[in-house]
């Protein structure tokens, strides 16, 4: 028994352990690194890779430039280069190499900013360069800062540098909170970065100016506290937040104590059952409250998931890599069969079934391993590039989606390789490949336009027609990852059970049909 299995295991080993498998492994790994780079790029077109919150103030003949530079996850960067540019002629007005949390004293900067900012707002461009990427901000002076009305000794002139404006879907505008209307003692800017919607992991980036610092004889104790509430009906206002009623008896946790000009990044775990973060800004016996709604905040992981599964990320891979399996079926089956070399091998102690099965399984194992290489390299690539990844559920879904679709393609190509001549094989294989990848969207469109529904029904037809495409499992895993991160809405025509059945049928059906032909086919050239 063992003796009769030796040739089969051997044939399998020989079919799998080939130079081309190694090349595929390298190719897929490079593909994975490329994919993580592409998805990172796709991500930073939607979201600034680095951001800065900073301010410049002038007092008693000193000019202080202080702030923080942080990445899209709210982590302070190690090193950054900050350039103040005149956008009109692109000349550099000032240039600093700083840490993630910096304070610089440079009289020249205030001179420059006064000249360029005071009259024409936003006219100085601030370019931040880090290893993570670049981002551009614009300077805005704080004009409304009270100077003499209530606190005649508050003499500082502040210029803030706000966080980069974000698209509305990602985050509300940085809000100007905690300016106590009756006693203006502090000013606070914030940016809430939601990392994961499911766990509520978030970063709160805060800039608070304790302007009483410069007021003689008035040193109240400032604290910032936080809590969560569920707002009844949220109506997004013009600035991304609406009016929320905060109960009087809400209990708060201490976030920090405010001393001087202050910058901080706080890790928070948002209460996923609530909708708003409440910040209470307390001094003496007064307090003011501000809420930040995080219900509609787009989490970083979703931006990443969206970018990764888009056509700019893994979509590209799913589109092009079936070609590799077209070649694999060619070299394992179509070519040796057509030239007649398989016949001499068949005279060894193996059966046709053994040869058919082992060479098929070699392709399947290749699909499993190369996809693992791909997914792992995407995983590590993304950890390195942006330090964020998907959750386990999504990785599993992603892996099996791609494996399922590559195996379905391989099975189809293997069927062709076992039944038609190798010269015709390449032509017909490429035709099928084009049909199922590049031309498929056109077919969906034709269906939508002719059968009914028009452009609006395109998405529904996408999932309906996916069953008839070997790409089905990849299409569906993509769909469920996007659904998982609430990037897209549920499509009524999508049916996971049918997707699984379709993939199994694509694989088993072509495999059996291929064998029925191969069993009887003449192996001499």
């Amino acid at each position, binding site marked *: 028994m063992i003796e009769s299995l030796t040739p089969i295991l051997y044939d399998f080993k020989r079919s799998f352990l080939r130079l081309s498998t190694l090349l595929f492994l390298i190719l897929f790994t490079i593909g994975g690194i490329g994919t993580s780079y592409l998805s990172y790029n796709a991500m930073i077109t939607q979201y600034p890779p680095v951001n800065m919150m900073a301010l410049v103030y002038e007092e008693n003949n000193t000019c202080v430039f202080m702030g923080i530079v942080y990445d899209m996850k709210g982590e302070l960067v190690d090193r950054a280069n900050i350039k103040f540019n005149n956008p009109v002629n692109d000349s550099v007005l000032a240039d600093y190499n700083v840490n993630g949390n910096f304070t610089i004293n440079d009289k020249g900067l205030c001179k420059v900013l006064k000249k360029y900012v005071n009259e024409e707002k936003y006219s100085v461009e601030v370019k931040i360069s880090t290893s993570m990427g670049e981002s551009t901000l614009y300077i805005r002076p704080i004009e409304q800062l009270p100077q003499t009305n209530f606190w005649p000794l508050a003499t500082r002139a502040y210029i803030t540098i706000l966080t980069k404006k974000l698209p509305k879907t990602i985050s509300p505008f940085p809000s100007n909170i905690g300016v106590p209307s009756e006693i203006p003692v502090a000013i606070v800017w914030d940016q809430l970065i939601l990392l994961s919607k499911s766990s509520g992991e978030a970063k709160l980036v805060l800039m608070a100016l304790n302007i009483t610092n410069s007021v003689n004889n008035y040193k109240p104790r400032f604290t910032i506290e936080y809590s969560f509430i569920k707002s009844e009906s949220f109506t997004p206002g013009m600035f991304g937040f609406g009016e929320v009623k905060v109960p009087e008896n809400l209990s708060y946790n201490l976030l920090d104590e405010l001393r001087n000009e202050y910058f901080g990044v706080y890790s928070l775990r948002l209460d996923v059952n609530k909708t708003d973060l409440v910040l209470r800004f307390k001094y003496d016996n007064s307090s003011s409250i501000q809420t930040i709604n995080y219900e509609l905040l787009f989490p970083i992981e979703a931006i990443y998931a969206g970018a990764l599964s888009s056509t700019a990320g893994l979509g590209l891979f799913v589109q092009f890599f079936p070609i590799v399996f077209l070649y694999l079926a060619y070299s394992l089956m179509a070519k040796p069969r057509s030239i007649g070399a398989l*016949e001499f091998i068949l005279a060894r102690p193996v059966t046709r079934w053994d040869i058919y099965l082992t060479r098929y399984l070699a392709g399947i194992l290749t699909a499993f391993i190369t996809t693992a290489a791909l997914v792992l390299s995407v995983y590590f690539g993304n950890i390195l590039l942006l330090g964020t990844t998907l959750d386990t559920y999504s990785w599993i879904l992603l892996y099996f989606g791609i494996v399922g679709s590559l195996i379905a393609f391989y099975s189809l190509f293997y069927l062709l390789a076992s039944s038609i001549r190798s010269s015709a094989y390449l032509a017909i294989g490429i035709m099928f490949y084009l049909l199922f990848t590049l031309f498929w969207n056109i077919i969906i469109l034709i269906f939508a336009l002719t059968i009914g529904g028009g452009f609006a029904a395109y998405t529904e037809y996408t999932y309906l027609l996916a069953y008839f495409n070997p790409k089905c499992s990849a299409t569906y895993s993509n769909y469920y990852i996007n659904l998982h991160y609430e990037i897209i809405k549920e499509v009524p025509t999508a049916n996971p059970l049918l997707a699984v059945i379709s993939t199994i049928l694509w694989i088993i059906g072509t495999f059996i049909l291929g064998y029925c032909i191969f069993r009887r086919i003449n192996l001499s050239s």
Partner: protein
Amino acid sequence: MIEIKGVSKRFGDFLALDNVSFNIRNGEIVGYVGLNGAGKTTTIRIAVGVLQPDQGDVLINGYSIVHDKRRASRYIGWVPEQPIFEPDAKALDYFVYLAGYYGYSASEARSLGKKLLEEVGLGNALYKKLKEYSQGMKKRFALAVSMINNPDNYLFDEVLNGLDPQGIAFFRDLAVKFRKEGYAVLFSSHILSEVENIADRVVFIHKGRIIREMNIEEIRALIKPILKIKVDRVDDRIKAILDKYGIINIKAREKIVLIEEPSTDSSEIVGVLVKNGYRVEEVSMVKSSLEKVFFKIIGEER
């Protein structure tokens, strides 16, 4: 021992083999003779298990090639009519690859490969690519591969065809050696004379059917020597004089007398004729050819 049992094979509508049965016993070289397209290669491909018969079976040492191919294949060697290998592989590498099917590790296979390829006369072409091999070299290579498992049954399909005299002698000697070791060997050919001086037995196939099985003695018996004598005249008396030396056939117009299987020396017969006053102008010994026998056998069937 190879037992071909009632094998039939159709290619579409064309019946290539029609209930073909014969055995190749141990220690026996069997010639398998038929015209081009008679079905020899088809029979052999079925016997080695690379082609599926529509009906019938082939037993190799008792193991069915149809139902127990993995085992049966261990006991049979095959040199195809036109061996085809992966063209870009180097000979020894490809040998090692094929030896793996018999459970040989790479290093074992390498030393076995060097030994066997040396043995078949390819010792100086171990590292050549197979596409650079000539037809004769390919046959030798296929033979070396056939001998990996040292099987006791061999099927040689038109193996002498296209070989140089050295190659022909090599395969003949090898077959004789195999016979001595008690192996069963089949030589197929479309020329009877090619197998005549080596085979113990000849199986004739014609249009997919086995029409005759003959021992080599029976075949040789069909090849009769004929004494051809040209004389100055032929008359009634000459037949009477020569009658006792064999079957007489007189061609009066050409003045030729043919004596089939003469019972005595030609000089004695010539002497008798001269003594009786005939002038002998020409004497020669002719043979009815093997091919004539072959066609006669085929013809008999028609």
